[in-house]
Structure formats: structure tokens, C-alpha cells
């Protein structure tokens, strides 16, 4: 029996700590803890709602832009503003680009090293690596010399004894199963993906001024002026062409590199199609509006809930059923910590009761995380690409069904295999494939509007705060790369009165609730075999399959506006 602590969990955004109990070579219990807290929603109070998105975007710099988008939608919902069609399309292009970018980075730079032993790539035969590459894809960078050069670079790195980011990996762990050639192929694509993400994200630079932290949202639309005849307009025919080129290249990279690599890696780890199983409850708010955001039937990726792995029924989603517990979180509710609260009644008084740092273990019987525990109708939910793809699949979304069936066919697997660690990885890749296609289509739509002289990007009816009601409240949603994201805003006298974000990683990584029900991370780790408790690679595999984002997950609002005691460090 051993207590494993992984802190910091690396290759994630933010500060996550996992403690796990290991009995008889497998995880018997697990606790997930967010160890950082900033209080952004508290900082938002009293500020101009039109700029809430600028602040909220800084909730996260990895899933940059998703909080900005969700925030403008919450304020637009509160004020009753509809955005022009061009703004809707531009937002879809930006958000779709973010998904593809984020999924590629996740697979290659945050997750691959759990499956790929970089040191084994040194033993690969470059000729056989070339044959392997050509057997799974017609991607042009596949010659023997190309892989030889990559291997030489790796050899030079090892010989220098300065291994940089690779210095502390679990190399040689018995759970690594890829042949040397597959490892070399993956290392090559790790480097190519670094180049890809840098190039592709220039879509955000064109439409947002920069990435991370785009700067062109407006309540009511976008600040990206369109004009077919003005070289200084943000969007003109030359820029449309540039966006199109970047989107096509992304499609090619996803189709010819990312998808074949995921399928190839997965084929060597069949056990992981039955590990990392989870709650079986999947939630998607739906996203990428094809018409008014108010019409949930016109979302490109559908909204809905799947319960108990039953793909024959998609339940409707109602935001009124979302609540949060703080029973095991370092906050107090004014009427006791046993009852959950809806975000509009959201109240958070940070109250750290954990061990005094430096500490060895958390007090997991008590409170142990800065994350709250969101629930839907009192049930824990998994959110993320897997939830979106399952809800779309079960809703009869033909394009998703075709892509999912094609991937399952190549892996010779059934849909039930998706309820797993590898299922999450496959769903993410399939979603990237789907959205890369649609970013191209949305760029075309925008180009057509530009050609037709439809240049509206902003609805200024409610820009002037004097046009607002004295009180208003709104709900904004999006499906971020990591899952269901929503912001709740209350406005009073032209200022933010209350702000609450319930984010994907809080759904997945939150601690137990008042009923002792575990969230997605804690459940998914149960029964995971651990070969070496000193090097818990298997824990990382399942946790990384969710793509954790902890900066997003920790938040606070204090309904009473109390200021906290600030001590000076000695």
C-alpha cells in the first residue's frame, strides 16, 4: 500500500496536485486538488461590463479567447444584444481555430510523452521509420534522410548531457510499448507540431491582433472592420486569402499527421481503451452558432446530456440545473457547506483550512482543493471533446458519426471503447479534424459576405450604457477545447455586480461533493494499474487525457463584497 503524490502535475495549464492510494498494484482511491487561487471574479466587480471580456480572458492563457467569447456573450445576453452575422462568423473562425490549435498542442506537447519514450527513438532505424510513416500517411516529410536528421539532432542533445525539457521524464518505464521507429516518428512530429502551432495561430493575429489574449471582441460584435476596397481594413480580400491558406494547411496537418499518429499510437496501447473509464455522464452546452445564439437548435455542435453511457438518449440541458458544492473546497457558504448553490446565488468566501505549507499530504477527509464541485441535477459530469463527440454522435450529427465510425473502424473498436483514456484522445483528434474543415468553410462564408457588401461587424444599439436597464443578468456559454464553459453576470447601475464562471476543468477536476460523490478525475483513476509507484506514468496518462486547465478552474465570487485580510510577508 502506498500513497502517491504527483505535484506539480506538469504538461498541463496551472497548478494541479493528485494524491492516490495504491493497493495491490492499482489505484484504490484518488484526490484531485487545485493549488492556486487568484479571485478574478472578485476583481471584476464594480467594473464596466463592456470590458469584462478583457479581464475574464486572463482566466487562462492556454485556452485564451474562450473566456473572452463567453464573457461578451454573457453581457450580450444580459443586455439583449444580437450580434451581426459577420461577428458570429468571425467568432466561430476564432473559436474553431483555437480548438484545432489547442488539440494539436495537447496531443504532441502535453500528452505524447506519456506514450512516447524519447530515448528509444535513438535506437530507431531511420529507413524503417520512413516505411512506417509512409504506411500510415502520404505526408511528404517522410524520407529516411529526414528521420536520420531528426535522430542526429536527438543524439547531439543526449551527448551534450543537457537534455533540456526531456531531462526528467519517466524514460525506460515498463508501460512504454511503442517500437523505436514509432518513437522517432513521434519525436519528428513533436517538432513539426511546434512549427505548425506557431504558423496556424496567425489566424488569431489577423483577427485578434495577437495570440495569446486576442483584443478585438466588443459587446455587440467585433472590432475587426471589413471592407473589400480598403487595404487598412482588418478584413479585406487579401486577408481572406491569407486566412484560407492557413486553414487549408491546418486541415492537411490534422488529416495527414495528427489523425494517423493518434491511430498509430492507440493501436499499440489497446488496454487503454478499457482504462480511465469514468462516470458515464457527459455534458455539452453545444457551440458554434449557425444563427442566433439564443436558438440552441442552431448550434453546429449540439447541446445535450448523456447519462450512464446510454447513447440511445440525449437529455436536454437547462442552465437552471447547474450548482456548485464547496463541501471539500477551501471556501465557506454562509448557510453551511453541505448544500449546493446555483451560480446566480453564487457565494464564495475563501477559507484555507489545509495544512500549513510546506506540507507532505493534504487532509483529504476535510477540504482539499481551491476548486468547487459543479453538479448537474446533483450528478457529476464529464465535459470535453469526448462529451461533445458523444452528444453529437447520439444526436445523429452525420458528419461526426462518419468521422467517429471511420476512426473506430480503423481501430477495430466499438463505440463503448470511447469511454476511456484513449477514447478522450481519439475524440479530441476527431473534433480537430471536423473543425479544421469548418474553419475553412467559415472563412469562405465571411469572404462571400465581404463580396456581397455585407460589412456589418458591430451592433451599437446598446454600446452606450445610458441605454441599459438599471438591473440585468445574463448567461454566456461556449464549448471551450476542454469542455463546457459558462459565465453568469449580474449588472446593476452600469457596473458588474456579480460575476461567476463555471469552467470545464472545474467539472472534471473538482473534489468530492457533500454526498461523497467523486468528480471525473477522481473516478477515472480508480483501478488504474501502477507498475512503479515512484514513477506513476499511468496516473499522468489518464489525467492528461482530460487536458487539465487549472487556472481556469479556480475562481471566486463574494456576494457580500468582503475584502480579505492581507498580510505582509515577514
Amino acid at each position, binding site marked *: 500500500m502506498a500513497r502517491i503524490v*504527483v*505535484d506539480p502535475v506538469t*504538461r498541463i495549464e*496551472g*497548478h494541479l496536485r493528485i494524491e492516490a492510494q495504491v493497493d495491490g498494484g492499482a489505484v484504490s482511491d484518488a484526490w484531485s486538488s487545485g*493549488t*492556486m*487561487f487568484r*479571485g478574478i471574479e472578485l*476583481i471584476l466587480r464594480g*467594473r464596466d461590463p463592456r*470590458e469584462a471580456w478583457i*479581464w475574464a480572458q*486572463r482566466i*487562462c*492563457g492556454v485556452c*485564451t479567447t474562450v473566456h473572452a467569447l463567453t464573457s461578451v456573450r454573457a453581457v450580450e445576453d444580459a443586455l439583449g444584444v444580437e450580434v451581426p452575422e459577420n461577428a458570429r462568423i468571425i467568432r466561430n473562425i476564432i473559436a474553431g481555430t483555437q480548438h484545432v490549435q489547442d488539440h494539436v498542442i495537447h496531443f504532441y506537447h502535453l500528452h505524447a510523452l506519456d506514450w512516447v519514450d524519447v530515448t528509444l527513438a535513438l535506437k530507431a532505424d531511420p529507413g524503417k521509420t520512413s516505411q512506417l510513416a509512409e504506411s500510415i500517411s502520404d505526408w511528404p516529410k517522410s524520407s529516411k534522410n529526414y528521420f536520420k*536528421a531528426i535522430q542526429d*539532432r536527438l543524439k*547531439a542533445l543526449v*551527448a*551534450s548531457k*543537457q*537534455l533540456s*525539457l526531456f*531531462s*526528467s*521524464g519517466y524514460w525506460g518505464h515498463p508501460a512504454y510499448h511503442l517500437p523505436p521507429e514509432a518513437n522517432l516518428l513521434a519525436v519528428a512530429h513533436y*517538432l513539426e507540431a511546434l512549427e505548425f*502551432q*506557431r504558423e496556424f*495561430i496567425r489566424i*488569431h*493575429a489577423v483577427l485578434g*491582433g*495577437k*495570440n*495569446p489574449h486576442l*483584443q478585438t471582441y*466588443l459587446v455587440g*460584435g467585433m472590432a475587426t*472592420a471589413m471592407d473589400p476596397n*480598403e487595404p*487598412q*481594413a482588418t478584413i479585406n480580400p487579401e486577408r481572406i486569402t491569407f486566412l484560407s491558406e492557413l486553414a487549408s494547411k491546418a486541415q492537411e496537418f490534422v488529416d495527414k499527421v495528427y489523425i494517423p499518429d493518434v491511430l498509430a499510437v492507440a493501436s499499440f496501447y489497446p488496454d487503454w481503451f478499457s482504462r480511465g473509464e469514468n462516470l458515464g455522464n457527459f455534458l455539452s452546452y453545444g457551440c458554434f452558432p449557425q444563427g442566433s445564439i439564443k436558438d440552441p437548435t442552431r448550434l453546429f455542435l449540439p447541446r445535450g446530456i448523456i447519462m450512464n453511457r446510454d447513447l440511445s438518449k440525449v437529455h436536454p440541458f437547462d442552465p437552471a440545473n447547474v450548482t456548485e458544492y464547496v463541501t471539500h473546497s477551501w471556501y465557506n457558504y454562509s448557510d453551511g457547506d453541505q448544500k449546493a448553490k446555483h451560480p446566480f446565488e453564487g457565494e464564495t468566501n*475563501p477559507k484555507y483550512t489545509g495544512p*500549513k*505549507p*510546506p*506540507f*507532505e499530504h493534504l487532509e483529504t477527509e476535510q477540504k482539499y482543493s481551491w476548486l468547487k464541485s459543479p453538479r448537474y441535477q446533483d450528478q457529476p459530469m464529464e465535459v470535453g471533446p469526448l462529451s461533445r463527440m458523444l452528444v453529437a454522435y447520439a444526436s445523429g450529427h452525420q458528419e461526426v458519426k462518419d468521422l467517429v465510425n471511420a476512426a473506430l473502424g480503423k481501430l477495430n473498436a466499438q463505440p463503448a471503447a470511447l469511454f476511456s483514456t484513449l477514447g478522450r484522445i481519439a475524440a479530441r483528434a476527431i473534433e480537430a479534424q471536423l473543425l479544421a474543415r469548418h474553419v475553412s468553410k467559415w472563412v469562405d462564408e465571411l469572404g462571400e459576405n465581404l463580396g456581397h457588401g455585407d460589412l456589418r461587424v458591430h451592433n*451599437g444599439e446598446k454600446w452606450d450604457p445610458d441605454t441599459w436597464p438599471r438591473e440585468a443578468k445574463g448567461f454566456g456559454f461556449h464549448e471551450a477545447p476542454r469542455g463546457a464553459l459558462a459565465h453568469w453576470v449580474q449588472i446593476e447601475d452600469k457596473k458588474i455586480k456579480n460575476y461567476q464562471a463555471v469552467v470545464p476543468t472545474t467539472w472534471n477536476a473538482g473534489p468530492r461533493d457533500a454526498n461523497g460523490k467523486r468528480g471525473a478525475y477522481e473516478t477515472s483513476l480508480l483501478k488504474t494499474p501502477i507498475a512503479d509507484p515512484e*514513477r506513476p506514468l499511468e496516473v499522468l496518462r489518464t489525467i492528461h487525457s482530460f487536458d487539465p486547465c487549472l*487556472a481556469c478552474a479556480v475562481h*471566486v465570487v463574494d456576494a457580500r463584497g468582503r*475584502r*480579505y*485580510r492581507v*498580510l505582509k*510577508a515577514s
Partner: protein
Amino acid sequence: MLQGQSFTGALQSRGVNRRRFIKFCSAMVATLALPPRYLAQVASALEKAKKPVLVWLQFQDCAGNSESMLRSSHPTVAEAVLDLLSWEYHELVMAGAGHQAEAALERVVREEKGKFIAVAEGAIPLADGGVYCTVGGKTALEIARHVCSNAAATIAAGACAWDGGLVRANPNPTGAVGIEEAVPQAKVINLGGCPQNPANTAAVLVHYLTFGELPAVDQYNRPLFAYGRIIHDQCERRAHYDAGRFTQEWGDEGHRKGWCLYKMGCKGPQATFNCPSVRWNDGTSWPVKAGHGCLGCASHRFWDTRSPFYDRLPNVPGFGVDVTAGQIGLGVTAAVAAGTVVHGIASAVRDRMRTRAAAIQPPPAKPKAKE
């Protein structure tokens, strides 16, 4: 291959030729605003340099500065991480986790004491014994003190690491501060911005590798090459401001024609940064080019001093409290308020300030590090 392989050797081993290397050096010389004659010096220093060790620390952050670094184009992140430096700790991207990650950091502090470079991202919470940010059970403050005070230099990357940034914005729920304030004994250079621009971070690293010291800085310990000029003076929309052509409403004719965004709340006249010249994402764009006003994100405590972001200057709390120097700010902001053309005056004042700011920095920068 030999231990301590050189940068060009490493580049060449992967098929990057000398032409590309010189191109990279040229980009660095340009970003640093050095005269072209320094190209040879930069190139030769990098050729000789053994790979110095770098650790990247994340505290109360959003990882936006790490992501920004991933978008670096000169050098690319692969070159920076594998060839130019040995990047031995960075939670966002490193292979190791948990104890192994902690051990990697500890090894650097022990074996490279006084020689390694630290980059810090995010604020440090001081309230309530530092419980608002722990890594491996240790507080951010404990880690920052241990690592930064043993580093040759610490780069505070982004607004939060510089001055506490958004985390410190009113009411500062966690008692957050920047690195310099948290660890006064550390040698810190501040790269404000939300996020930092990777071109500037790379340039600071190259300057350090070339000259063995940090570049000349202003009174906020920000490098002059990046923070010495007012955005308004470098802005591509400046001619429209001078001619009185303003965007009046989002999406109007002026907005479509690229007219000045001053009336839409742009803080460019009150902000210093090289954003308009180095731009972002391989020089593709910057916020004003994309159609939205500047937030002044490289200004001191900008979240509180430059907001409300849609209010027109001078109707923001930071008006008249300039980012690099009171004198510059008063000159420019008074002129902006009067709606007159000021770039000549501002440049003259700025040049005086640059000289003075550089002169008061301990230790004084080498003359060649200035322009």
C-alpha cells in the same frame, strides 16, 4: 557530439545553415535596436556560447506568457529550448512531473548556482502565509526566494510577474505582488505586457548571452529597447490622428479605413512598448492594426491605471502618471488633452529620459548596449 555543443553547431547538425543563423542574429540586433555593426559580435558570442541553463517558473499565472513564448519565431521555440539554452524546468511543457520535476529544479539551483537564468510568470501571493499558490506543497514565495535569489538573473515575464498584474488589481484578494517586490535580493528585469512579447524575451536572452549582462533599463527595470518609445509615436494610424481623422463608431467608415482609435478609448498615447514595430505572431499584426484600441498593457499596474478601457483619455485613473517617466507622460498627455501634435516634443523628452534612465541604473549598462 561534444558536451556543451555550440549554438551554430547544434543548428548545423540539424541542417540549419549559417545564412539562417545570421538571419536570426540580424533579427535580434534589430529588436535590441543595436547598430548593425554589432551583428558580428552577436553572432560570434552565440557561436561560442555553451548552452546556459534556464528554468521557467509559474506562479499565480494563466500560462499566457508560456504560450506566447511557444509562438516565438526568431528563434523558434525549438531552437530556444533545445539549441540556444538548456530549458530544464518549465511545468507547462517539461517531460517530468512530481518528485522528478522538483528534483530537476533543485539540481539546477544546486549545480548552476549564480549561473542559470530564471524566468518567472505570474504573481506571488503574500496574504495568509502564501496559501493561495503552492507547488509541491511549497508556497510560491518560498520557491521564488529559493530559485530567483540563486539565479544570475530573473526575467519577470508579463504584467503579473512584473507588478502583480491582474491578480493584484483592486481589491487584490490574495495580496499578490510581482517578483521584484517578493524577492528584493534577486536581480530582476521586467518584461511587462499581457502577455510579454516573445521577440523581446528572446532579445533579452541574446543580449545576456552576447554581452554577459542585461540590457539597459528604465526606472521600472524594463529594457529600454522595448519600452523606451511611446506607442502613439510608432503607430501606423498616427497620420490620421495628426490630420484629425478618427473612428467615431465601431465599424464606421473611419474604422474601415484604418483611422485613429483615440476616441474609442485607445491608450496608445499613454503607453510605451515596441508593439507596433515588432508586432505579434511572426510580425503578423498587433491590436491597433486589428481594429481595437491599445490597453496600455505594458504600463505600470495597467489594470487599474489604464481602465476603464473604453473611456477616452484623459478619463482614466492613470492619466498623467506615465509609464516610464513622469516628464514624458505630462508632456504627451497634456498635449493629447489639448489635441495638438506632440511627437517632436515627446521624442526630445524621451531621448533625454533614456539617457538619464540608463545612467541611473546600477550596474551601469555598457555604452554599446544602448543605441
